[in-house]
């Protein structure tokens, strides 16, 4: 088994409370399925849309101001056999229905 970070990028905000509740229910159902199958190492956290960026030279600026479709809205730590299984798991993510994307990144492995 290997670990993967899922980065959730972009995705439209639902326009009514009713739709938001439906989307929330989809996320909870998706996480529950993954958890039942033992794929969830950590559900992770949602992230604020922007913060500060510390640049070389230690200047601190507001940002990052990525385009809405690129903004990372949260992350999870997922267990999977290999990258293709991890990608397969990400296909169930509700963010895809709202125009968002899941970036699947293997956690780097090293043998001592």
């Amino acid at each position, binding site marked *: 088994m290997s670990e993967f970070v899922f980065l959730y990028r972009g995705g439209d*905000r639902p326009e*009514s*409370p009713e739709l938001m509740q*439906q989307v*929330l*229910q989809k996320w*909870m159902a998706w996480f529950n399925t993954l958890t039942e199958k033992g794929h969830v190492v950590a559900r992770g*956290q949602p992230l604020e849309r922007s913060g500060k960026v510390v640049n070389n030279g230690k200047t601190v600026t507001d940002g990052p101001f990525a385009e809405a479709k690129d903004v990372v*809205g949260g992350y999870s730590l997922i267990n999977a056999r290999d990258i293709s299984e991890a990608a397969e798991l990400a296909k169930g993510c509700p963010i895809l229905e709202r125009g968002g994307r899941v970036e699947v990144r293997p956690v780097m492995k090293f043998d001592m």
Partner: protein
Amino acid sequence: MIDPIDHLFRRESGRIAATVARIFGVRNLALAEDVVQEAFCRALEVWSFRGVPRNPSAWLMATAKNCALDVLRRERTARSFAALGDALQSEWTLAPALEELFEPQAIRDDLLRMMFSCCHPRLHETAQVALILHILCGFSVAEVASAFVSGHAAIEKRLTRAKKVLAKSPALFDLSAPTDFSRRLPAVQRALYLLFNEGYHGAAPDAAVHTDLCGEARRLAGVLLEHPFGATPATFALAALMSLNSARLPARLDSAGNLVALAGQDRASWDQELVAEGLGLLGLSASGTEISAYHIEAAIASVHAAAARTEDIDWRAIVSLYDQLMRMAPSPIVALNRAIAIAQADGPERGLAEVHAAVDGQRLSTYPFYPAALGEFELRLGRSAAAREHFRAARALTRSQMERRFIDQRLRACDGGGELRTGSER
């Protein structure tokens, strides 16, 4: 896990919108709506990862308070917020002042206050209902449009205009003045009645929309009943008719999603809990001397509910209730339903005569169930050619797939196919 049928977000959005609008002032309604949107987006994001908190309502209200605080910090020099007064001057005073404005005691009547404000006398009834759906039930423009089977642009325009009227009023409605309260109350009852009817008789093609609208109307009537000035006999009667008719909703569609005429409905699928609730409310409505049209309509629904089988319906009682309703609140629809009841009690010939004598067909020229009722009478009289003609006219007026399928089934009955069903009352 939240119960999906519970509509938690929808319910809470109205409460939060009403509270923030009171604090920001009705002039800043748009800002209040932003706060609601922001609070629910945060709930969606945080709860997706961390699960639903133990007290979701309190979590949402606390989040709205924080979002409101951000808005006030950003806007305090550009706008005025009467409710906060001098507290806006410094960070030290702002947060505690806001805390106080969000106290449970302070937010108790917000929903009701906003409901009364939405029924502004300068707004047309349909605009009042749209505004209630939008602000108090959290319906998006698209959702309001689908509830009214109307275009997105038309609803957007109607809502924008209605919000402007609301925002121009000096303050939200003052619930503490009994005279003002009872003067505005009929308009509020009427708006909730229309909201319910939109759900019950409306043309929305999606059955879920009907259930949702009826459910929202019942919920808001419940809020009205909680207030001492609001719990009048007419409000009890209104709530009773909503419960009794809602009990029939599950039976109005068969398993294939087809509309079923009253006579063909499976009474076993009526919601008995709602029937009992409706009868209880009807009992409570009889406390004074006041008899409203809602009383009569609830009584009609209770006669239907009292019959164990379709054959047992006391149509004579229903006719005399419609007689009363015609005196109190005459309308072509009431006249038509009365004629249908007469046909059930005394035969289709009498029903037909009654339609010609008392129903203004001109004013029902777009209502598919008017020609459908005529078709039904003719069919029962064995005149299938005339019946077919009426059903064809009805078909041309249908507003949804569901209604079309219903009429098609009646057309087949004219050819001798399909079982004979009496009455087109739904």
